[in-house]
């Protein structure tokens, strides 16, 4: 394998579910992403760090970020480039909209086939869905082995094409060896991603997708991108990845959202107490006499 690995890191721009407002959901039950602050999915950053560590070891390796989303999802590609990734691809097309995990995995797998990597690394799960399904489903679509819940990559043997991975499970640690190519999903317990690198920020701060360049309508960008092609982030649609339309988006999704309910708590008659000595002593005595405690 020539002392280098070709790595694709799957990353997702996610709504920051810790700060959700009332207009977060559309009438059809899908997420109104436009109304929310968008962040780099946390575990995808752990995944990026694992890729960067491989590149530290084998500097001729390449790291390409693959993300699917609206135009603004290019932000995660830029952020990854600031931290050491070589570039990225934005999968964007109206036809991808409303995809469940299976349709998403199909789309990502189509793009990965075109990229032909040795190793695919992703975060275990995204914080907007918490499903952890896309990694294994991408692996299955590509007919590749998978290692989930990875905490570290302990060894790579480029001769035999084998990678040794430590997995964090509920009750312990399992070390496995996987034959490449393959898919690894990385746990939050893995090392945090390194911060931005000032040199990389200088180099890539003008990296833009074609749509972003057009939006800005500045000749400056056009000229710059013509001269420095590494600044151009490719955008791929359904046709670019030879995807079958019936397998994309809402139509390609076996699962449907039947109903969305906002959270309404059934209010019990809570007895309100204060933190005063009298209240606390009264409560503790009550609990003891009812044999709830003691």
């Amino acid at each position, binding site marked *: 394998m020539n002392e280098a690995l070709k790595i694709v890191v799957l990353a997702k721009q996610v709504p920051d*579910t810790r700060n959700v407002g009332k207009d*977060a959901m559309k009438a059809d*039950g899908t997420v109104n992403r436009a109304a929310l602050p968008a962040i780099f999915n946390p575990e995808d950053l752990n995944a990026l760090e694992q890729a960067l560590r491989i590149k530290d070891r084998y500097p001729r390796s390449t790291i390409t970020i693959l993300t699917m989303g609206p135009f603004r999802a290019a932000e995660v590609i830029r952020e990854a480039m600031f931290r050491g990734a070589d570039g990225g691809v934005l999968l964007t097309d109206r036809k991808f909209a409303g995809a469940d995990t*299976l349709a998403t*995995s199909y789309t990502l797998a189509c793009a990965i086939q075109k990229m032909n990597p040795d190793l695919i690394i992703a975060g275990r799960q995204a914080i*907007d*869905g*918490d*499903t*952890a*399904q*896309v*990694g*294994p*489903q991408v692996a*299955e679509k590509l*007919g590749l*082995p*998978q290692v*989930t*819940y990875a905490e570290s990559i302990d060894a790579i043997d480029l001769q035999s094409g084998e990678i*040794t991975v430590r997995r964090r499970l*509920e*009750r*312990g*640690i*399992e*070390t*496995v*060896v*996987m034959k490449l190519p*393959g898919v690894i999903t990385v746990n*939050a317990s893995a090392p945090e991603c390194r911060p931005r690198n000032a040199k990389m920020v200088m180099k890539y701060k003008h990296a833009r997708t074609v749509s972003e360049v057009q939006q800005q309508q500045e000749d400056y960008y056009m000229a710059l991108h013509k001269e420095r092609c590494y600044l151009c982030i490719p955008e791929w649609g359904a046709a670019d990845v030879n995807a079958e339309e019936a397998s994309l988006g809402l139509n390609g999704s*076996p*699962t*449907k*959202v*039947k*109903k*969305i*309910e*906002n*959270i309404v*708590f059934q209010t*019990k008659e*809570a*007895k*309100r*107490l*204060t*933190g005063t*000595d009298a209240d*606390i*002593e009264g*409560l*503790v005595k009550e609990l*003891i006499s009812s044999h*709830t*405690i*003691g």
Partner: protein
Amino acid sequence: MNNIFVYCEIEEGKVADVSLELLTKARDLASTLGCRVEALAIGHNLQGIEKQLATYGAEIVHVADGEELAPFRTLPHAAVVCGVFKEEKPQIALFGATCTGRDLAPRVSSALHSGLTADCTSLEIGDHKEAKTGKEYKDLLYQIRPAFGGNIIATIINPDCRPQMATVREGVMKMEPVANPSPAEVKTVDYKKYLGDTDFAVKIVAREMEERKINIKGAPIIVAGGYGMGSKEGFGLLYQLAEVLGAEVGASRAAVDAGFAEHERQIGQTGVTVRPKLYIACGISGQIQHTAGMDGSSMVISINTDPEAPIGKIADYAIVGDVNTVIPKMIKYYKQNSK
């Protein structure tokens, strides 16, 4: 045909609690649907495993027993599950939302092109009418789960693809043995026909498994802390209270994410579901993701400085106050008043 299948996790000859919980739930669904409950046991040295499974309602047990099938590895297990499902055509397939189930089920769902819903907190049977086409569906599996950071509850269905697949966390469903279990019919799976060389692309070279040290699921009293405890040191107060009450310490996801407590202590949709007789929620705001894992508690006491915190709405006693003063007082008055 078209029965409910439960993928059963087996470690050292013992069926995991989560699988027995799923069998219990499957019985309930099967009686609504008028179908049978089948279990799929894949591993090694499984003689007699059907007895454990029949006790919880498995009527038919498919056993794939072979050295290469234990410990669990994704690819061989996925190949066997897919092979059996293609032949048996279950209408519903349930997996534990464990490291095993969450690794295996998506792989199977992708191979069978069948929808999968992760971490369901409730499963029901119901009908559906497609708004656009007017097509009606009878007896679908409603896969109900909090979504989107716990800000909404979604009901997911798989109208057209089978099996309808779902994962459920340990402790979410109740585990109840059948009153008078009948012996299960055992079907030996000729599993080798499903396996190819590529199914062995991952080798396990080491396993360091520990006994579970923390058992919050079985604790009668839980003292749980949230982000409002402020720090790992702040959690020290909870351990003091837990010690005098004979309780276990639990934590919200926010507290675990912040590093205040170990992941094993996490209660909620992405952690453990508990039903203690007393749950003391300290500095926990009470988001649905958390309350989904504890709202079956017999009694809830909340301690929070914010009188508007949602936890106050499901609490029996809502103490508005600072945990740092309230908890020491609870310890003091407990010591004074208990014998």
